[in-house]
Structures are given as structure tokens and as C-alpha cells.
């Protein structure tokens, strides 16, 4: 594959054709914050946290779905980008009910960690405090809509890695909800194989193993990538 040369934050980087700016940056040791991206599942550019500036483009572009090009000049951490990222994170924290101190993911949550990394010590927006459900109908897992940021990592893991197609998004805008099958209790889903891939994919405390209490949900974020790589490269032991 042809190599492409570009600069990221002034650093000369060589990447493979077809690689995303995010992958090229990571290979070069440059950190771009992400939320809806997870190694192993396909990217959709939903959360906008990975927005970067590209010289010559009037728009900000999401690094996770932007392919590298020869001679590209990428800026990953200007003041403007940091300001926008902060705003995105604050809006996520204000939209649903995030009570870190009593959350299953306290201390192991991507949203919480990113907020700290961005120096968020308070949220400038008014909290919406919506009334939301917790679905505990599944025998192994729970879903707490109070903590969901609608990144759809669970949906993509369920469709593209497990192939079950149980998880989906219903509604529009602020009314959007992650649902199981035709919006029924998860435990009544006929398609769910109880594989737990959605739980492994979730960046927050929204999906959890039943019985997990405060701060107990630690997940292995590399598990899905491991499964996908093994499948693509036929590494299964026969």
C-alpha cells in the first residue's frame, strides 16, 4: 500500500493509504481524545470529540473517519479545539444524570476521565435531570439510561461483531434511546445471545454486569479488537 506523508502538530508522520488521521496520530504517539471510537468496531464519527483542524479546510473534521492524504497538515490541540471538546463533554454531563460517586463505572469511565483530562471542574450548563429507566430484566446485564451518552458503541458491537442485531437506537434528538429488539425489556429479547460484547464496548456506566456495585465495572477494552483481529486474520485455533 502506498505511503502518505503528512504533518500532525508540526510533526512529520508517514501513514498507510486508507488509514485514518486518528490511527496515524496514535501510531506517532499523538493523543487525540475519542469517545465513540473503539478499536475493533467501525467508526461513525458521532461524538465529535476527535475533531481536528486541517489546513485549507474551513470545517473541523473528525479524525476517526477522516482518511490521511499526502501533504495534509493536521492540528490536534489548538485552543479552539480544546474549547469545543470541553463544551462537548460538559453537554454530555448535563444531558443525563451522571452521579459519579455512586456509579458502577466510577474510576473506570471514559467520560469521567476525559472530563478530568480537560480540566472540567464544573459544568457551565444547566443540568436537564431527565427521568430515565434502568432496565434490569436481563439475567446477566443491566442498562442504566441515566449514564448513556448515545455513542452507539454497543449497537455496533452487537451488529458487527456479534451479529445479533439486538441493540438499536430509537427516537430522535434528545429523545433518543438505546433499545433492545423492538423496544422491549432486554430480558425478553429473542435475538440477544447474552454474549456481553455491548457491555465490553460501553465507555460509561450505562451497561454493566448485574450485581456490580459502585466502581466495580472494570472492562477489558481490548477484548473486542482481539476478537475482530482473530476473525479477520483467521487466527482461531482449530
Amino acid at each position, binding site marked *: 500500500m502506498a505511503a502518505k506523508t503528512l504533518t500532525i502538530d508540526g510533526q512529520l508522520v508517514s501513514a498507510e493509504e486508507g488509514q485514518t488521521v486518528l490511527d496515524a496520530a496514535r501510531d506517532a504517539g499523538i493523543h487525540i481524545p475519542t469517545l465513540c471510537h473503539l478499536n475493533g468496531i467501525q467508526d461513525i464519527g458521532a461524538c465529535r470529540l476527535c475533531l481536528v483542524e486541517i489546513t485549507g479546510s474551513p470545517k473541523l473534521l473528525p479524525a476517526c473517519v477522516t482518511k490521511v492524504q499526502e501533504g495534509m497538515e493536521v492540528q490536534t490541540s489548538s485552543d479552539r479545539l480544546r474549547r469545543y471538546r470541553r463544551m462537548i463533554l460538559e453537554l454530555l454531563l448535563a444531558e443525563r*444524570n451522571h452521579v459519579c460517586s455512586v456509579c458502577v463505572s466510577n474510576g473506570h469511565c471514559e467520560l*469521567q476521565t476525559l472530563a*478530568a483530562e480537560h*480540566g472540567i*471542574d464544573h*459544568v457551565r450548563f444547566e*443540568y436537564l435531570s431527565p*427521568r430515565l429507566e434502568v432496565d434490569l430484566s436481563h439475567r446477566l446485564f443491566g442498562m442504566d439510561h441515566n449514564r448513556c451518552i448515545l455513542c452507539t458503541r454497543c449497537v455496533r458491537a452487537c451488529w458487527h461483531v456479534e451479529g445479533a442485531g439486538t441493540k438499536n437506537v430509537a427516537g430522535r434528538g434528545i429523545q433518543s434511546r438505546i433499545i433492545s429488539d423492538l423496544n422491549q425489556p432486554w430480558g425478553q429479547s429473542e435475538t440477544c445471545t447474552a454474549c456481553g460484547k455491548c457491555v465490553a464496548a460501553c465507555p460509561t456506566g450505562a451497561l454493566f454486569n448485574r450485581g456490580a456495585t459502585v466502581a466495580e465495572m472494570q472492562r477489558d477494552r481490548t477484548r473486542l479488537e482481539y476478537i475482530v483481529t482473530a476473525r479477520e486474520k483467521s487466527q482461531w485455533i482449530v
Partner: protein
Amino acid sequence: MDRLRLATVWFAGCSGCHMSFLDMDEWLVELARFADVVYSPFVDHKQYPENVDVCLVEGAIANTDNLELLCRVRARTRTLVAFGDCAITGNVSAMRNPLGSANHVLRRAYLDPGNLRPALPAEPGVVPRLLDRVLPVHQVVLVEHFLPGCPPSAPQIRQFLENLFAGHGQSGECAKVRFG
């Protein structure tokens, strides 16, 4: 140098932030060398005094008493610090907000469980009225600094105060702080 006039107040929170403050142990002796605690749950002053340099505010604003005292605190204090997650986000104290207005919350707590003699607490002048929404401190008054954590640890509080007294008190300069 004049002695620093320090205060702490306790609103809708579990007092964990104040416990964490006490956890600073021997540094409290250090603190006493240059600061007077002029108002606090730890000391026996009944009225919030004038001319306070720094006040640590624990807890969210949940009832009319909280609201009244907070306004007095703001008017009489140079530097207000939202101290801990309840003051900053509402945290556990604000978990009632999704239930709706104060009335909904009271009904849920006192009538729905079906006690023997269900009744809403009403003692005007004694039991303060609940606000319809529990509010973070910065949504009511101007706040200069934020120290998140549930509770912030003693070393974090100490570092924060040392920075603040040294004149560059940004909570961002404090050791890694996060919600929770």
C-alpha cells in the same frame, strides 16, 4: 500579615467533605498558625461574620435555609470555593431532581411508602421548605474556585489551600481532580 479569615459551610451534603478536611490532621495545626476559622460546623459561631477571606462551601442548595445562608455567605466573603461534588454538580443530593417538584419528592418519600400515619412534614419556621430543584452552588451565586471529588481527599484539599493562599489558587493546578 493579617491573619486569614477562613470559613466553611455545610449545605445539602453528607459532611464527608468536612470529614476529609479534618483528615488533614497535623496540617490543621499549620493552618491555625496563619488562619482563624471564623465560622464552620466545627466551631461555635452562630452568625456568619462580615469580612471573610475564604469560604469552603460543602453541599448543594436544596432548601430555603441553604439559599438564604448562601446569599449571606456570598455577600460577606471574598473567595468562595465550591467544595466537593455536591456543591459542584448536585451529586447525590440532586438525585431527587428527576422526580420533579418538591411536592412530588415529599409525596414519594412520606406518602407513597404507606406508613401508618402518612403525613407531609410541615413546621413553618422550623423545617425549611424544599426548593423544587436542588442546585449546584455556582448556579445560585458566583463561585471563584471549584474542588471536585466525593469527597476531595485530604492531600487534595491541602494542596488546593496552599495554592490558594500562595495566590495562584486554581483548582486546575491541584493534583489530578475528578468528579466522583
